[in-house]
């Protein structure tokens, strides 16, 4: 059976993670993603091309580990859009594509002459999805962002901290991943709309707007009850005032920087925990109910932390789970990737063969579809790797014509 999306062609200008992550998902499900790069800048529109991590001491634009991870299952072509010929070739490509995607700063595609209206004239029904931090419209549309700035402005950095401490934020670009997920949703939803109505559209995705919706109940607590997250003792991302759970936290265990997460969802979980702890304080009446435990959470957490500190995090989490209490070691990357039975059984880390990097494992997808499942076998393209394939088979150029374009610096 063909891939779920193998009937779709994406004319793809995305890069980094916030854009590349979206077309990666589509490519893994079979969409033909044609990634366009600039031959003059050697593809460095996407700074990840040459950025760490690296497999060895070699450096170069085809050797960036993050780039390889984010661009599997895509075709890579070069096209010089400073040239008229380059623009004409882009028009030909748009004419046979379902969707144009990009995450440039606002206005880049417009300045090349490829406004939504222009693309629609080339290909009626075209779906154009742009993704940038603040979007293409609004007072901040010229502002610059990357993941940490998106997270800061959208409220996600603030809501991720501990009581009495400054914001901890996110130790990675959560909103580059998640912005990519919203971009994929936008592409798929707009294509569905096109399938039904024949109508294309420009989707103006702003990552900050997607991020802003991700603190929902706290936002309503403000608009309905007037309660701010910025107040004494708040926020504390390791606690759970709603849904009401206590104990609910990340506690130290034996060893250096070793931690365990424990969540008691209700009084049954609490009694199961108490049976394992077996210390007198667990019988204190003030801890008998969730309400009581939440009201005395500082003391409760001190007791729990003193108890967990002597235990091995994996053994403790296993014992708690076997008693029905949600618990997990805070896993290091190597532990969750190489030692977690779940990710191994899932096939979460497929290996791809890259012509310069060799065999490298990459992120898989966390879904399996019974009929048209994803497949990740192909590495990210080296610069211009698929020029012959795309210009020859997709656009029908003769080999001599492709050679001439190369000669003229168009591709």
């Amino acid at each position, binding site marked *: 059976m063909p891939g779920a999306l193998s009937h*779709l062609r994406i004319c793809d200008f995305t890069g980094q993670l916030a854009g590349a992550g979206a077309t990666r998902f589509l490519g893994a499900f079979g969409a033909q993603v044609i990634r366009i790069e600039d031959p003059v800048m050697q593809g460095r529109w996407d700074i990840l091309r040459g950025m760490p991590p*690296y*497999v060895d001491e070699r450096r170069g634009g085809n050797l960036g*580990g*993050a780039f390889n*991870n984010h661009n599997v299952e895509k075709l890579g072509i070069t096209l010089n859009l400073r040239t008229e010929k380059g623009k004409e070739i882009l028009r030909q490509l748009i004419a046979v594509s379902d969707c144009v995607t990009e995450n440039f700063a606002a206005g880049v595609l417009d300045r090349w002459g490829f406004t939504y209206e222009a693309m629609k004239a080339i290909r009626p029904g075209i779906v154009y999805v742009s993704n940038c931090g603040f*979007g293409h419209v609004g007072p*901040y549309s010229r*502002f*610059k*962002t*990357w993941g*940490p700035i998106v997270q800061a402005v*959208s*409220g996600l*950095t*603030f809501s991720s*901290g501990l009581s009495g*401490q*400054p*914001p901890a934020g996110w*130790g*990675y*670009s*959560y909103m580059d*991943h998640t912005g990519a997920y919203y971009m994929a949703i936008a592409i*798929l*939803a707009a294509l*569905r*709309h096109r399938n039904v109505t024949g*109508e294309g559209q420009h*989707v*103006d995705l702003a990552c900050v707007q997607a991020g802003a919706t*991700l*603190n*929902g*109940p706290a936002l*309503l607590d403000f*608009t*309905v009850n007037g309660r701010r*997250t910025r107040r004494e003792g708040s926020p504390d991302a*390791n606690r759970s005032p*709603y*849904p009401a759970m206590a104990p609910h*936290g*990340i506690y130290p265990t034996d060893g250096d920087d070793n931690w365990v*997460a424990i969540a008691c969802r209700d009084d049954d979980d609490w009694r199961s925990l108490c049976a394992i702890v077996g210390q007198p304080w667990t019988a204190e009446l003030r801890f008998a109910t969730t309400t009581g435990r939440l009201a005395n959470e500082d003391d409760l957490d001190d007791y729990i932390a003193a108890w967990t500190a002597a235990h091995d995090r994996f053994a403790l989490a296993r014992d708690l*789970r076997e008693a029905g209490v*949600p618990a997990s070691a*805070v896993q290091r*990357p190597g532990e969750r*990737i190489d030692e*977690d*039975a*779940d990710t191994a059984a899932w096939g*979460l880390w497929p290996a791809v063969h890259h012509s310069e990097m060799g065999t490298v494992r990459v992120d898989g*997808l*966390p879904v399996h579809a019974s*009929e*048209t499942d994803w497949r990740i076998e192909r590495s990210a393209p080296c610069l211009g790797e698929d020029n012959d394939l795309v210009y020859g088979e997709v656009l029908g150029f003769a080999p001599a014509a492709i050679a001439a374009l190369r000669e003229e610096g168009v591709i």
Partner: protein
Amino acid sequence: MSANGPLAGIRVIELCDEKGAFAGKLLADMGAEVVKVEHPAGDPTRAYGPFLEDQPGPERSLWFWHYNTSKLGVTLDIDQPEGQVLFRRLVAGADILIESEPPGRLATLGLDYADLQPANPGLIMVSITPFGRDGPRSHEPATDLTLAANGGFAWMNGYDDHSLPPVRGGGHQAYHTGAHFAVMSALTAILARDAGAPGQLIDVNINAALNVTTEAGSYTWLVNQGTVQRQTGRHAGVSPSMPSQVRCADGRYVNTGIPPRRGADFTNLIEWMTTLGLLDEFPLLPLLELGVLRDRIDLSRIAEDAEVREIFGAGRQAFEFVASRIPAYDFFIGGQQRGFQVGIIYPPEELFDDPHFVARGWPVEVDHPELGKSFTYPGAPISFGAAPWRIARRAPLLGEDNAQVWSDLGLTAAEIAGFRARGVL
């Protein structure tokens, strides 16, 4: 311009707790007809806070309000045989069933994909579970917190001071991440079906979703077995990086982003400090002026070139100095107007008043006729040009749409009343 959303015409049955309700909301706000199936006693999340005026009650949960906008609500006890019959009838007319029941439960009830699909060959069923439907850890108990610990979020979030615990990340992002993949894969299956594929079963594993939503955490290990370490307010890294979070004069925080690197950046910085009247107070001004003379700071030479180090460091310190002397919002706007990638660390509630979010129509009013009031909700995550995202209605009251949904399936009023009397609805 359609008023119905891009997913108009897609019929979804949602049987989800807090793990999947967000996926249903995303589909419903984009125009799908989503019928939320609750036990007659009410979905457990109706007991989740915060509550309207802090008074608990099944129609007062702001959690439930948020996660169930635009959905129709019906009640059904699928543990009763009659309820199972009705569930099959409901799903027979659906495009998508999205569920987050414990693995194996629906099979026990005769309501799993194999039971439902024969009557509806195009059915797309999406299961959202902590560890997949049938993996080695499928039956382990888990919550948003323990998934964040297991799946890699927590290891990367926290503080420079490692005596403080790692941080989950606020806002139930483990569940959100599972929900995002549920929506992406459900729509993928819809497009496949549009192109001729049959219906299918989609297994969404939240733990796996987190594992592949950790950026450098995973790929650094996969590429060269490096382990990133958490740092306050910035990327966890194999090697430590300089702080980028500053408390401003008004007590709010900013992310100072990327310090000046080009001569023009230093020119803009000096102009900014002059405008603010702060230039004379900054002792490292001569280094900023040296920065102006450089086309670009070559950061690859920072280790061996002391002057590069001093100039770059002075730019960073100037950012910290300016931030500490002005309100966070002024730092954000003033910096961005000068081309610096800086950001205010907004408390979420302050977004409702931000001019950019207001201009883009993000705050939306949602009518609650049962209360005679309307409230402001967080609006569109995605700005569609045609067929806009919208909240069609506030979350359903318990069983609010029983009459409509069940009568559309051909039940008479008397039959519906009978099922209600027997506790099936």
